[in-house]
């Protein structure tokens, strides 16, 4: 049993490169844990005396012990400030030796930010923390979810931009202390951020990842993702696609039975109801939508409905007068129809040319000249990315095929099958 000062002295002494594993063992031991817990009051002073960059491992353990003793419901301003100063300054190599402690510290930072009502305070430190823990930009860490949550609450969606756009390929619990909940929360909060930035296609990708995650039981995160998935599909494409075949059966059933008002809205949209009827339905279910936080998405879905009507007209007509268009799409007059078509052309949702001379709209085939430089550059970058993903997939396939657990299971299965074959029906007697 030593004192806090002795511990601090040990940290300063053992922070050289070669001594770090020994320091880690010391810090993990129960004796030192007791020391840290008992001198909770002096921990922050001890941390202030150490150098965050040189003694990262020691500071991490001291701060994490402090986090365990503070009251996360009330929030501790001093602890928060100390942690926020530590996170951008720590050395990645040292903190990666104790990923679970680092993730726990970041979670504590998030909890205190929320308790004190200062979500913006934690945004920059957590962003720096993600970079420290990630071995490479395509690894997932538990800090991603906490960071996105703070960005959402402080409305700093732009700060999350680079992280949410990065493709995540690897989830490695040994390196980053990730749990399945972290993956689901990353997908859900990431999707919320993309919805706020109006990047619906990427939001749908993230939500689909969460929905198709293998699972035996339904959880609240997946259910929330399902509802948002249906609403964002309505906004983006006007219809909800079939869930892929590899979705867990319990999730497919939940999509039909548990989604309540959202599922009904989807059905009404496919039945070609007018915007007024949809709005009336949404008004009736206001309370349920408010509870799920989906009111804004429902409104967007209903607005998108009128646009779909115009898009459907492009498939039927080659030329249409503005007055007819207004009548078919349920708009109030030719001027409004002209503005609506202009907006859709601007957004690239329809290809048409308006002629003011005769008040007609000519719908065009998508006659893009695919032999332009821009198209071939876009095609090249897409092919390059597919080649990269194919290489990653091949490496992943190799890793799984040579994984011990997988080989044992397949061995057992093929052995059992061979036994059944051997003791099965005798071979056919040769015919006459």
């Amino acid at each position, binding site marked *: 049993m030593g004192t806090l000062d002795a511990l601090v002295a040990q940290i300063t002494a053992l922070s050289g490169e070669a001594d770090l594993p020994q320091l880690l063992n010391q810090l993990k031991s129960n004796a030192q844990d007791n020391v840290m817990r008992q001198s909770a009051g002096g921990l922050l002073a001890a941390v202030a005396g150490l150098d965050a960059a040189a003694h990262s491992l020691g500071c991490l353990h001291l701060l994490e012990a402090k986090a365990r003793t503070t009251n996360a419901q009330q929030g501790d301003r001093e602890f928060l400030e100390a942690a926020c100063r530590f996170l951008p300054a720590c050395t990645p190599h040292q903190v990666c030796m104790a990923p679970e402690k680092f993730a726990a510290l970041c979670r504590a930072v998030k909890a205190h930010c929320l308790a004190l009502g*200062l979500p*913006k305070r934690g945004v920059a430190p957590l962003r720096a923390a993600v970079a420290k823990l990630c071995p490479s930009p395509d690894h997932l860490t538990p800090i991603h979810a906490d960071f996105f949550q703070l960005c959402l609450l402080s409305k*700093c969606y*732009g700060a999350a931009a680079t992280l949410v756009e990065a493709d995540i390929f690897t989830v490695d619990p040994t390196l980053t202390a990730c749990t399945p909940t972290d993956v689901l929360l990353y997908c859900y909060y990431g999707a919320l951020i993309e919805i*706020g930035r109006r990047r619906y296609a990427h939001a749908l990708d993230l939500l689909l990842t969460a929905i198709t995650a293998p699972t035996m039981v339904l959880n609240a995160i997946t259910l929330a993702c399902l509802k948002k998935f249906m609403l964002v599909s309505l906004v983006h494409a006007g219809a909800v696609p079939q869930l892929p075949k590899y979705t867990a059966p319990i999730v497919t059933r939940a999509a039909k039975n548990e989604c309540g008002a959202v599922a009904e809205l989807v059905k009404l949209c496919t039945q070609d109801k007018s915007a007024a009827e949809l709005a009336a339905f949404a008004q009736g279910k206001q309370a349920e939508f408010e509870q799920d936080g989906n009111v804004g998405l429902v409104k967007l879905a209903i607005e998108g409905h009128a646009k779909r009507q115009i898009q459907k007209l492009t498939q039927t007509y080659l030329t249409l007068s503005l007055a007819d268009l207004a009548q078919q799409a349920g708009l109030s007059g030719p001027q409004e129809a002209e503005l609506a078509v202009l907006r859709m052309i601007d957004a690239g949702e329809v290809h048409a040319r308006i002629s*003011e001379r005769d008040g007609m709209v000519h719908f065009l085939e998508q006659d893009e000249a695919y*032999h332009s*430089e821009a198209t*071939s550059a876009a095609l090249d970058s897409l092919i390059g990315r597919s080649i990269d993903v194919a290489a990653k997939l091949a490496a992943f396939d190799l890793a799984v095929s040579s994984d011990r657990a997988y080989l044992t299971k397949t061995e057992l299965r093929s052995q059992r099958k061979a036994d059944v074959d051997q003791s099965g029906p005798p071979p056919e007697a040769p015919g006459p």
Partner: protein
Amino acid sequence: MEALLASVSKLIDSRQYDEVGIALDEAELEDPSALSSEQWPHSLHLLAHVYAGRLEDARFVYKRTPEDRRQSSPELAAAFALLQRLWVKDYQHVWAALQFAWSAQVAPLAAALAERLRSRQLSLVGRAYSTIGVPKLAALLGCSEAEATQAASGEGWAVGQDGLVEVKPPAVGAATSSAAAEQALQRLASYVVHLEI
């Protein structure tokens, strides 16, 4: 905060308006209570994001600004009104919203924004209309009819007798040069190799 805002002023002076929004975002994260301070250039922050085409980020700047700052700055209210017009793509009323007595800090950005909007509208008209009347063109471009006719002739569109402009679709890009063609061949070869494996 002065140091952070000084770097932003330098960006404005060198006309790198695209970077102003991001610089202000980073400065705000350094000092979380920045938006509540009176010295913070709220309307500049909002318009910088609008200039870079990030309407969502501009909207969130407004949402993050506390209520008292919003009430006390008519310039911020004008900037938000402009954002609202751009958000719903109300092309004609955007110009009325741009006509505001912007402060000295914001004025160059507002002028640059007007330029950018005008050229974007012109290319939109090029894509969307086969014939358009001069008054409507002037309303979309936010300028007088004479200036609109000038802009139309600048794009190579003929102005007819009846006051209608014949809009020609934008020409397709020229064919690639030989060096680019060689590189393309190289890339194709590597794709075929990859597919064979």
